[in-house]
């Protein structure tokens, strides 16, 4: 069936996630949906399968306009999503998981006709090429097998449109081959397949057509035959960088604020060595789980290191807790999960900002924290970082994403941190705030001499901010690329260089 | 002197019977056990009776205490003991209704049971119940309180946790009060399970009726201790005299009687609760059977006031001996 999107828009507070997106997905085709983090892919997927209702625009299936209010509505229309996050009932059998929403069909007297149910489930398993006993525990299956079971379940529901959301992110190469064989079979049976992936090689291998999103907008839809890896990347990040590259910071290669040699943490980081120059912005680029955040968290003592040495200002140090990192070595870490582990959303701004420095504000006699000094520190930083709030006593949970991010950074400035590690600085903030945060980070290095590590999976962000970029893959640093503007470098050449290292 | 003689006689009789039992034991291998819910001062006193029985008769009685007051815990422990081959049990049923299941199982195995302390609900496989008659004891205490009040006045009725025994005690108090036209129950306080809770509720009841209370009656152990503490403080701080009768002889209560803060308490006969059931079990192991229509054996209660506080224990011993002497004939026959 042909799935048609006409003028879909969807806003969340502070962000326009989808902006007038139109696209057509044809039966008998594998259609890739591409875009960087935050481009609007996941919102679009959720709109198609019914989880989010769009603010404007319509979704048509073979010309019929759909009204989707929930995932169930989508399922009833034959639209099914398969992803890694879909929960299975791990204590139940494979057959029960496949037939969970069809048990009614197998009712017999007061019980179920198990023989018929298991036989039907066995047919489904055969269709997806799994040689398994339907009565086995689903919890014992591998991620790839579970995914195939999910696809089988979709087939048994007579799905017309199948969305595969990052289907290869945690399965092995041979399992990928098996999955792709099934996808090709489904394509030839006339199904409409939508494939979402970060891995361009896979897209080039299996897809017939691509649709690219950027900043919530539809950039284009092309036949894969007309595209190359380079042209796809170009579509994804734009011909021209949206954000101007900042002027190059002059740094001294011998003046290292932080020097890391052969650092390792079991299962997280392998053999990492690098130096962070004073007054520099260093980029860590890589996918989630590639080791970039893990390295940062090992540095600040959150994860235990198993090998390697760390020097701060030339002196070897042992950082065994975050307290030590902050108080002794003045290293601050801005978490990527602002709301989960970065901020206290129920507390006011001044409490959030001054938490690491309470000891300095304490009256030795009364043991009380000096409230007016606390307020002044918060107010000064709010002014310096241009935080938009009613005052230092406003609840942080009521602020916009961009202002929240400024508070997370302000906290470490209050603590006089010389080394700042900022993890995904612009996730969940709108375009304007994003630019302000970039400017703030750059200024910290340029005018205050702070040494900053920016961790990001947003390529334009990292290219425009960082003077050098370390590329992470499979828990290792796999490359070191100069940022912009470097003589002879263009944004394209940098992104291609990064792409080569990651492939 | 008289006391000594009767003890000696009992010992002689016990020895004679023990010899007879020795012969019987080879036939059916009677083994005696005593079981109570969990640690409590009452059970300590009961055990002195059990020990006295063992000493006099030379019969070994294995004593066990459970871990808590639940019937589940009791079921587990007693079943395990029955499996070990014990044939005669003296048991304090943790739950007078809930113990039925356990007793039925035991009876099927041919085990003989006597309840002590509180009676399982009728019909029960237990052959006898030895203990205090809850209602009669409550009536006796109420009579003593009204006498101390001079035959008229207002009473607060203080009850323990809701249950069969509490209901009987409540009835006993009300029946006696109904006989005196000048006596009224002005407030009933209930569900006193813990010491702190009892103190708080009784205190509230006093406050609600301040200046209007002549007496209080408590028919459970925990509230009695709480009221003894409370009235000691109340009277020491110059509160108007409130008469009080409680139950059991906790040291706190006895102190309050000696100091004149409360009038008295009812002493139960825990020694008898220990001794008498085992004597019955011994006789039954020798072939005695219950006399038709008998079940509850009142081990007696004694009103303790400042007058007899130092001598009441002797009176209880006499009471116990009298019951032991009357077992064959009145309750048991061959």
């Amino acid at each position, binding site marked *: 069936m042909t799935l048609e999107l006409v003028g879909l828009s969807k806003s969340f507070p502070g962000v326009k996630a989808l902006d007038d997106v139109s696209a057509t997905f044809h039966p008998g085709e594998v259609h890739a949906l591409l875009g960087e983090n935050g481009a609007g892919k996941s919102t679009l997927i959720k709109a198609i399968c019914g989880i989010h209702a769009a603010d404007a625009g319509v979704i048509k299936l073979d010309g019929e306009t759909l009204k989707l209010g929930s995932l169930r509505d989508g399922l009833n229309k034959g639209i099914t999503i398969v992803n890694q996050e879909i929960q299975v009932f791990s204590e139940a059998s494979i057959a029960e998981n496949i037939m969970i929403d069809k048990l009614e069909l197998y009712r017999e007297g007061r019980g179920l006709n198990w023989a018929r149910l298991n036989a039907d489930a066995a047919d489904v398993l055969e269709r997806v090429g799994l040689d398994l006993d339907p009565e086995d525990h689903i919890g014992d299956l591998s991620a790839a097998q579970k995914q195939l079971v999910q696809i089988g379940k979709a087939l048994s529901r007579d799905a017309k449109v199948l969305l595969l959301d990052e289907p290869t992110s945690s399965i092995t190469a041979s399992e990928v081959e098996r999955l792709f064989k099934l996808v090709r079979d489904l394509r030839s049976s006339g199904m409409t397949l939508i494939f979402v992936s970060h891995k361009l090689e896979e897209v080039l291998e299996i897809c017939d057509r691509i649709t690219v999103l950027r900043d919530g907008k539809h950039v284009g839809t092309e036949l894969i035959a007309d595209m190359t890896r380079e042209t796809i990347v170009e579509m994804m990040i734009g011909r021209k960088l949206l954000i101007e590259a900042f002027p190059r910071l002059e740094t001294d290669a011998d003046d290292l604020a932080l020097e890391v040699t052969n650092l390792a943490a079991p299962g997280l980081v392998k053999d990492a060595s690098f130096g962070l120059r004073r007054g520099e912005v260093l980029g860590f680029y890589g996918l989630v789980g590639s080791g970039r955040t893990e390295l940062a968290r090992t540095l600040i003592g959150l994860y235990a290191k198993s090998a390697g040495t760390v020097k701060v200002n030339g002196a070897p140090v042992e950082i065994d807790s975050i307290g030590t990192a902050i108080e002794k070595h003045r290293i601050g870490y801005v978490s990527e999960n602002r709301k989960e582990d970065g*901020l206290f959303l129920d507390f006011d701004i001044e409490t959030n900002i001054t938490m690491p420095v309470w*000891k300095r504000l304490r009256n030795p006699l009364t043991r009380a924290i000096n409230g007016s000094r606390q307020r002044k520190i918060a107010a000064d930083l709010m002014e310096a970082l241009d935080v938009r709030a009613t005052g230092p006593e406003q609840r942080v949970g009521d602020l916009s994403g961009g202002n929240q991010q400024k508070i997370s950074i302000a906290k470490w400035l209050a603590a006089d941190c010389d080394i700042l590690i900022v993890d995904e600085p612009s996730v969940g903030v709108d375009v304007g705030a994003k630019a302000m945060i970039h400017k703030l980070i750059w200024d910290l290095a340029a005018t205050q001499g702070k040494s900053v590590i920016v961790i990001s999976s947003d390529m334009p962000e990292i290219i425009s901010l960082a003077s050098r970029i370390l590329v992470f893959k499979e828990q290792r640093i796999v490359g070191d690329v100069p940022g912009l503007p470097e003589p002879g470098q263009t944004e394209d050449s940098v992104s291609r260089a990064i792409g080569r290292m990651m492939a | 002197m008289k006391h000594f003689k009767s003890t000696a006689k009992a010992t002689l009789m016990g020895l004679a019977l023990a010899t007879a039992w020795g012969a019987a034991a080879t036939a059916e291998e009677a083994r005696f056990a005593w079981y109570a819910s969990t640690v409590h001062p009452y059970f300590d006193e009961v055990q002195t009776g059990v020990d006295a029985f063992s000493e006099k008769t030379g019969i070994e009685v294995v004593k066990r205490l459970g871990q808590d007051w639940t019937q589940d815990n009791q079921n587990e422990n007693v079943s395990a003991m029955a499996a070990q081959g014990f044939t005669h049990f003296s048991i304090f049923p943790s739950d007078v209704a809930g113990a039925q299941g356990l007793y039925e199982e035991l009876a099927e195995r041919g085990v003989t049971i006597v309840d002590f302390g509180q009676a399982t609900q009728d019909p029960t496989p237990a052959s006898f119940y030895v203990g205090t008659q809850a209602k009669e004891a409550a009536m006796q205490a109420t009579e003593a309180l009204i006498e101390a009040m001079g035959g008229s006045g207002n009473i607060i009725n203080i009850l323990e946790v809701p249950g069969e025994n509490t209901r009987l005690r409540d009835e006993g108090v009300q029946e006696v009060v109904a006989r005196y036209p000048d006596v009224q129950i002005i407030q009933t306080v209930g569900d006193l399970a813990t*010491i*702190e809770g009892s103190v708080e509720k009784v205190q*509230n009841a006093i406050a609600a009726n*301040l200046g209007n209370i002549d007496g209080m009656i408590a028919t459970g152990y925990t509230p009695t201790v709480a009221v003894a503490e409370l009235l000691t403080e109340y009277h020491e701080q110059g509160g108007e005299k409130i008469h009080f009768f409680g139950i059991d002889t906790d040291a706190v209560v006895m102190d309050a009687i000696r100091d004149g803060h409360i009038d008295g308490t009812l002493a139960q006969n825990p020694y008898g609760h220990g001794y008498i059931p085992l004597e019955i079990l011994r006789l039954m192991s020798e072939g005695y059977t219950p006399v038709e229509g008998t079940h509850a054996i009142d081990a007696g209660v004694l009103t303790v006031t400042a007058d007899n506080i130092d001598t009441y224990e002797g009176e209880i011993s006499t009471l116990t001996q009298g019951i032991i002497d009357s077992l064959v004939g009145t309750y048991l026959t061959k």
Partner: protein
Amino acid sequence: MFMQRLRAGRIITGAEAGILGAALLLVMIFAIASDSFLTQYNVFNLTRTQSLYMFVALAQAIMLVTGNMNLSVGAIAGLTAVTFGYTVDTLGLPWPLCVLIALSVSLGTGFFNGFVMTKLGVNSFIVTLSTLFIFTGIVYGVSEGYSYRNIPASFKAIGRGSFLGLPYLFYLMLGTLGAVWYMFRYTIFGRQLLATGSNKEAAELSGINTNRIIMGANLLSSLFAGVGGLLWVSRLGSAQPAIGENWLIISFAVAIIGGTALAGGRITALGLFAGGLIMVLIKNGLILVQANVYFEQAFLGSIILLTILLDRAREVWSAKARKS
């Protein structure tokens, strides 16, 4: 200055105002409904029971603040009471020394709970459920169910004496609540307790040693439970092994009515004061109106639920007001 801050909502917040209002309302209703309510005897005893409740509630609230709980509060109180009774009665030591020994024992129980929680990483529910049994077992093992009666008169005076018509315990409660208020408002430890309960991960990433904080909460909790147990001994005049048996429900009820968040991160001293007051008022009121003794628990439960629903409604209203 004080009035200014009072008006600015920095001393009494909205959350406290609701619960304080409910307590005052109950006081007014009972004062009108019953002549016995405002008698000196009743006021003395109400405030005394409230004070005792406060230590019970603090023992729980201090754990709730960090997002944990302590099911063994009553058992710790019982153990402290029995330790005191044993040392003062059986061993005949001077009572101030016995207080020190007893409180050391209660701190020891808190250390044990905290050690298992933080070093071995066991959930507080499981740890304290187990130690509830362990400590209760020790109480009965040591005391064999008997109470210790030889309590020095000067120690009993703490729980029985009065000043200006109000019990000593009432002033002790006010002082303790004042200290608690100061701790959470001004000291680093107090704020780190709140931070740990509000968002443990964020607290860790802010350099707070949350294990140390949770250990501190356990020590404070056991200290409050221990003090509560000793005050009951003083008030009763004997050290009963059964002390603490009914604490569990009270500790949660007063703490929650008093506005302590079950999920952690929120506590108010004034709210706790009002919560304790509401609890004693309800129990007092049920007796004053001669409620049927067999239905009493149902009445008590309903009134507690009603109070919490009222407070919840107030929260919803104020959230609406903030949005509009």
